[in-house]
């Protein structure tokens, strides 16, 4: 279907965008890359009267030192991370992760901020940034606040963003910037589709492990027993890791059938195995 009618506003500065947002309230929807919003509007799942286009705001675009400063501006695109050659473990993890998001042409336009605010349970950036313990920065007429991404995402496609707020950046701390080990695994029916199972395992600079799975109904969830097992054992047998993954997965999706639990558990152990290979 063709897009319904709306008004297009494209401010040049964040201040102007915030003022417009405050003035228009619930009539407005923020347009980042539009790769999920525009299809939703075609299907009339969303019918905003105004689209507030963030693409002209220089402040929201990716900066060269993002992987050193830990500030990932909201309008950074998937393609920018897929094409970067940063040699650090974090840089390689971000590249590998971005290279498997949707299709090449979608990566050109799709943004990190859009993906985080969309909060699809199978979304790629929410999963990765949760595993990295990221924070989000939200700006509005009432000021700027920061909160943990794990608190920001409150459910499938649900976040704590207020009507008058814009997500301006995802923030990574030094433990994420200096991560030493990483692994990720994603299962899709067809390359480029949303994951049917997705897992990330990282060892942060302080030595702490973090394992998360996505593409489950409630949204990404931490696999705490696996992280604990990795922390407390220096050498691990595959079957012990898999048994632990089973327990963790069952705990977060008790309603799921055996096949789904198996799929998530095996996929998680693949991510962990990849993370351990770099040891």
């Amino acid at each position, binding site marked *: 279907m063709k897009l*319904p009618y709306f008004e297009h506003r*494209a401010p040049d500065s964040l201040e102007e965008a915030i003022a417009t947002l405050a003035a228009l309230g619930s009539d407005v929807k923020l347009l980042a890359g539009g790769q999920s919003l*525009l*299809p939703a509007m075609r299907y009339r799942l969303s019918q905003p009267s105004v689209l507030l286009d963030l693409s002209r705001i220089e402040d929201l675009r990716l900066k060269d030192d993002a992987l050193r400063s830990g500030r990932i501006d909201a309008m950074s695109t998937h393609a920018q991370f897929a094409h970067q050659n940063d040699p650090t473990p974090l840089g390689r993890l971000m590249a590998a992760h971005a290279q498997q998001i*949707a299709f090449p042409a979608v990566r050109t336009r799709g943004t990190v901020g859009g993906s985080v605010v969309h909060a699809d349970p199978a979304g790629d950036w929410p999963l990765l940034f949760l595993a990295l313990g990221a924070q989000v920065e939200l700006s509005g007429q009432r000021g700027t606040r920061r909160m943990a991404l794990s608190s920001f995402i409150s459910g499938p496609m649900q976040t704590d963003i207020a009507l008058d707020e814009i997500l301006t950046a995802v923030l990574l701390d030094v433990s994420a910037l200096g991560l030493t080990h990483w692994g990720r695994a994603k299962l899709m029916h067809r*390359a480029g589709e949303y994951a049917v199972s997705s897992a990330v395992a990282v060892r942060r600079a302080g030595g702490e492990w973090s394992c998360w799975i996505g593409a489950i109904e409630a949204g990404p969830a931490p696999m705490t027993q696996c992280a604990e097992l990795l922390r407390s054992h220096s050498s691990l047998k595959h079957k012990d890791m898999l048994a632990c993954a089973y327990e963790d997965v069952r705990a977060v999706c008790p309603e799921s059938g055996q096949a789904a639990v198996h799929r998530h558990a095996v996929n998680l152990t693949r991510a962990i195995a990849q993370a351990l290979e770099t040891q």
Partner: protein
Amino acid sequence: MNRIPINLTVNGRTTELSVEPNATLADSLREQAGTHSVHLGCEHGVCGACNVYLNGAVVRSCLTLTATCDGMEITTLEGLSDATAAALKDAMHRCHGLQCGFCTPGMIITGHDMLTRKLCNSETEIRQQLCGNICRCTGYQAIVTAIASAQEEISP
């Protein structure tokens, strides 16, 4: 309705358009700029028939608002005139890389992009890069063969 003045460079030619806010780049290119190689299959970003170059990177023109493209450069199949494009078009013909031809403009844009960026060094890589383009006739094998053949021709 409010119309927005937009300047585009379409295949090297400066074009001044007046578009409605909800016009997509695909619709503007087809209806106003006359570049009918831009095909609309699914209109929600799945099929890839509407792929065009926007400022040198491939995008879905059905998921891009024309209003967001002021001052940008667009290249469609009509504007692809380099040696890579010639080799790819020739290979598509030679290897039977099309039947009905509906997906072909998008396939050639995607193929041209992967050939230019040297992202087609194996069949697996070609298939991965091609994942966002749907063809309902060929079963893809002939298209993959055509891209591999064009790659050999360009850099043997």
